[in-house]
Structure formats: C-alpha cells, structure tokens
C-alpha cells in the first residue's frame, strides 16, 4: 500500500530535519496537551450523573413565597418548603419520588478512646436509593413504612463502614450520631455522582454523604441541617418547623416514561392553585419541572472558569496549528526539487498531496503521543488543586481516543494548505537546466 511508502518517506524526512520536526511536534504536543487537560476536566464536570435515567428524573420547584420581591414570571425559589415537600410526597403522583436535604453531625465510635468525628448526612425518604441507582454493597435502604414510623435506621457509606466496623458486616449494627443510636440497614458501595446533582448547595462536586437517614427521623431527633435555607415573611418560628415559611427541601420525582412529566406538571399547577385558594400561596401558580441535565444547566454547575479555560486551551491549540501550517509549508516547499522530480517520474498531484498529508498526519501522531503525556501531567496538576472536583480529574479510555483523533485530525487540517501547495509545485520550473 502506498501509504506505507509515504510513512517511510515521512520518517526519512523527520530524520533529515530533526530540529524543524521537533519544533512542530512540540508545538502540536503543547496544544494537544492543554486542550485535552481542559477538555477532560470539562467532560467530567459536565457529564450526566444519572445515565439512562436523567431524562425521566425531574426536580420540582413551587412558588410559595409572599408578596415581597415578587417578579411576575420570575424563577420560583430553588427549594420547597417542608409542608409542600411532605404534601407532594404523600400525594405519590409520580412513579417514584423523594424529598431530601443536607445535614451534618458527629459520629461517636463505640470503642472507648476513639475520638468522635464529623460526617455529612443526608435526610431523605425511601425512594432515594432506587431512583438514583445508588449501589449497595450489603443490605438495603429503608421502606416507606419506616419513613412514616420515623424509624431509627440509617444507610452508611463504604468508608464509614470500614472506619467503624473494619471489614465485619455492618448491617444490623448500631451507630451513634449526635448521641442518638441508629441501626444500619444497608452499606453503600463506592458512589460518587458527578456532579452532586441532587443538592447543589452542599457542593456541586462534593463526595456523597456518609450517612443517610429518613427525613422524618431527623426532625424527630432535631438533627442539624446543612445547605441553603431561605425564609420570608414573618420570622416567628423555628425555620425547620413544619409550617415555617422557609424553603430548604429538595424534591425529585421519576417516571417510567418521560412523557408522564407533562401530567405531573399539571398536578403541580393544580396543587399550587389549591394552596392559593386556601390562602397559603400568595403568588399565582409558578412551577418548574426540570430534568437532571436541564437542572444542572440552570444551576450553572460547571464553573465558568472551567469553561473559560477550555476555550483558552482550544484557542491556544489553534495558534499552535497555525504555527504548524507555516512550518509545514516551509518544510514542504524546501523540497520543491524533489517534488518536481517525483512529478516528472509519474507522480500525480494527488499522489504528492497524499504523500505530504501523510507526513503532516505523522507529525500529528507523534505530537499526539507527546501531547498525551502532557495531558496526563496536566491532569496530575489539576488533581493537586484543592478544588472539590480535583480528585476526579483523570484520563479515561474515551478521552484517550479523542486525544489521538484530535492530534491527527488537527495536524492533517494544518497540513492541507502546505500539501496542496506542494502538489501544485510546477515541475518544469524545478527541473530546468541553467
């Protein structure tokens, strides 16, 4: 196959022009390295945290606030009041639904002499685990009945189980959270949804919580909450009271088919109208029902700095490629005599074009390998950053493939003009006698 001949010629040409080739490879490698580092970070941060289910899982928003600061058509509060969340949960109008909010507390290990330590907690309801495909290593979550009964039950993370029970089965054992005893019903497997989509207030890329327990139980035990709380109107009671005019609960629903969302939306509007009639809702119905990706988009989860960095890296790649075009042009036209000779010996313009395009692509291939190394280095540097998403920055197989495709494609693109110019060298001019 003639391509192998061209690859051989390319290799020879590299050896002949070591410095120039090294320069081109370096430029491409730098461009590819920075682009792939930022692209990988973006890809990780902007990914779908619930693949397969994200288009039929929705976040609910209602407008329960008062007259103050009312903008017709504005965004309703990001969270629900406790009263609304519990009402929607009881209504059970979706195939699965869960209310949840963040919490925190201190775990006291049972062995004497061990210090208590702080954990992040999630107060939620039974459907949480099945809705979000949370993997269990042992045991299972709790049931609806246990929700209603305010059972003293909890699900703990893999790390916590290891820390407290070091290898032995944690299911059925007890943990002490803020002086209260809870029975472990299940231990999770490693789980880190990226982003931490179900509650963006506790850190968009944070690790998942260590302890999960029923929301009802958390109120019974008056456990500490964590996250954002918005209160309005008369501040006459504890914000976490059932009828307090405060929004601090997240509410997610899931359907078998995403077309069912429309009907649920109607239900939400109807519910808002009912609340309005009873005098609780002051504003007209203003509901939102967004699926996971829409919700993440609205919440502007991906930090704008990350987007900016990605654009910067690609602009840098563009300059590197522009540079490569010039260097390739110089490299190819330097061989005008050779081109003339080859044309005289029977090479068509197309053959010359392909020959030099292959050479450009080979530079890209080598640059891609080096660029991959640089990207790996770049991601290592990102992992050293203290950002909460830092530890997630790693190359995965699909990004690896993208690196090579990008390197070869971009260097071929850079080589198009120089190869075309090479192919159109006038043989007669190169060969003439003095």
């Amino acid at each position, binding site marked *: 196959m003639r391509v192998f001949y061209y690859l051989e010629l390319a290799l020879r040409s590299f050896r002949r022009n070591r410095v120039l080739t090294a320069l081109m490879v370096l430029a491409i490698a730098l461009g590819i390295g920075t682009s792939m580092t930022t692209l990988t970070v973006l890809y990780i941060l902007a990914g779908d945290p619930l693949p397969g289910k994200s288009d039929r899982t929705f976040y609910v928003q209602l407008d329960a606030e008062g007259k103050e600061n009312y903008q017709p058509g504005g965004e309703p509060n990001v969270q629900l009041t406790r009263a609304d969340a519990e009402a929607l949960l009881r209504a059970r109008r979706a195939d699965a639904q869960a209310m949840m909010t963040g919490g925190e507390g201190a775990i006291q290990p049972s062995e004497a002499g061990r210090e208590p330590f702080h954990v992040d907690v999630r107060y939620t309801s039974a459907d949480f685990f099945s809705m979000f495909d949370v993997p269990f290593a042992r045991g299972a979550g709790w049931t609806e009945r246990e929700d209603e009964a305010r059972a003293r039950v909890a699900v703990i993370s893999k790390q916590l189980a290891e820390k407290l029970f070091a290898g032995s089965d944690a299911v059925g054992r007890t943990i002490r959270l803020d002086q209260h005893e809870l029975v472990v019903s299940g231990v999770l497997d490693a789980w880190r949804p990226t982003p931490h989509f179900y509650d963006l207030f506790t850190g968009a890329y944070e690790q998942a919580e260590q302890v999960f327990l029923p929301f009802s139980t958390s109120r019974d035990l008056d456990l500490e909450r964590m996250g954002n709380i918005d209160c309005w109107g008369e501040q006459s009671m504890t914000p976490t009271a059932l009828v307090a005019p405060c929004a601090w609960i997240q509410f997610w629903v899931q359907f078998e088919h995403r077309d069912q969302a429309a009907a649920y939306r109607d239900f939400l509007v109807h519910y808002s109208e009912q609340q309005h009639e009873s005098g609780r809702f002051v504003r007209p119905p203003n509901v939102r029902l967004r699926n996971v990706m829409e919700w993440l988009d609205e919440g502007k989860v991906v930090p704008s700095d990350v987007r900016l960095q990605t654009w910067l890296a690609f602009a840098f790649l563009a300059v590197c490629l522009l540079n490569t075009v010039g260097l390739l042009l110089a490299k190819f036209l330097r061989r005008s005599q050779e081109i003339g*000779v080859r044309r005289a010996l029977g090479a068509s313009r197309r053959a010359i074009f392909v020959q030099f395009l292959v050479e450009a692509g080979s530079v890209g291939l080598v640059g891609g390998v080096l660029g991959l190394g640089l990207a790996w280095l770049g991601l290592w540097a990102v992992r050293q950053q203290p950002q909460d998403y830092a530890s997630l920055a790693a190359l995965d197989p699909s990004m690896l493939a993208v690196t090579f495709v990008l390197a070869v494609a971009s260097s071929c693109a850079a080589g198009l003009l120089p190869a075309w110019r090479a192919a159109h060298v006038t043989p007669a001019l190169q*060969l003439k006698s003095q």
Partner: protein
Amino acid sequence: MLQMKNISKLYRTELVQTHALRALDLNVRAGELLAVTGPSGSGKTTLLNIAGLLEDFSAGEYRLDGVDVRGLSDDARSRLRNQKIGFIFQSFNLIPDLNLFDNVDVPLRYRGLGRAERKQRIESALERVGLASRMKHYPAELSGGQQQRAAIARALAGEPPLLLADEPTGNLDSQMAREVLEILEQLNAQGATVVIVTHDPEIAARAQRNVHIVDGVATDLEAGPALIRGSEKRLGPIFAA
C-alpha cells in the same frame, strides 16, 4: 511515437506575451535517436517539457504513442508519464535524501509494482549502467558522471519506450560525457526512442536526425554522417564500475 501538430506555446505576463513555440510540427518514429538543437531561448526546453507532459500547450495537437494528450486529467497524464517516458536532466535531479536504490525505486512506486519485482528491476537497471555496487550510496557520494548514470538507471527501470534527455552531458567533463552518450546510443540500439535536447554539436552529429529550433519554429536538418570520433561502439555493459 511522438506526433506534434501545430503546437504553440504562449507565455503571458502582465506586460508581455512571449511565443515560446509557434506552429511547431514534429514527428518522431519509434526507435529514432533525435537531437534537438538551437540557441538559448529558442524553445527547446519548452518543447521537451511539452513532450514530457510537464507543461501544457496553448494550441495544436500532441499524440504520445497514439494517445491524444489533450483533455487528459492530471492523474491520467501522470500515469502516462510514468509508463511511457523516462527523463534525464542536466543537473541529474536525484533526490539527495535517498540512496541510489531508493532513487531508482521512485518511478516504480508510482507504477504500483510489488516489492520483489521492484527489487529485480532496480538491480538490473543499476547493473546496466555499471553502478550495482553503489546501490546503497547517496548521490552526494558520487561523481557527476556516476550521478548521471544513476539518473539513467532511474529512467530505465520502468522500461519506458521514450527517453527524453535535457542537456544530459552539460555538467560533465568530456570523458564522462562520452560514456553517457554511449549508454544512450546503446539504449536506442535496444529499441528505445531517444530525444536529446542539446547544444553540443558532437551529440548532434551522432544522432540519426537533427531538429533545429529557432524562435519557436522547428526545422529538420539532415544529420551529418555518424562520425565516430575517439570512441568505440560496443555492445553490452560498457565499463566496469
């Protein structure tokens, strides 16, 4: 082999129009040894370029080995050039990055031949010009005469019916020039059509036929008797490397 009728070539720049060739007729039969002579700027190089399909012409008709070249795509021309024509240039035009083996290989690669066949042809071509032992050498390591012989081997390897030589002896001293000329004569004797552009009268004298070009117009001249001066005509490999 080569039939040109009414060929004109016009060079246009912003200010002037130059007629490199005017209404040129030329018929070269297969197996002829033709010398094309004329003063500098007469258009002989242009004629060679057109004959070799390296340049296009403004008017007229050109048939190469029966094929009308007008309207042929670049791909078709290149293929024709590869299969029918072997070039020999004044400044040898070997590719400096490649050794002799790879230089002779170039036209064969564009022919699409397999490895074994290419190897066999290259080796036999280099043998014919007496450079088989220098196969792995680079052009820079050879003398002018050797380089030209290598260029001839390259022209031969594909066994084209037509050889076009542009001042083949121009950069060589008289001894090497004679050697090169003898090879060309040999090849002609073995059946190749050879067209040599030259302003060396000695070559003109040895050719069977002369075409003289002045100001873009060709005139056939009767060649002088084939004077053999100072060298012997021998058949087979000419000299030891």
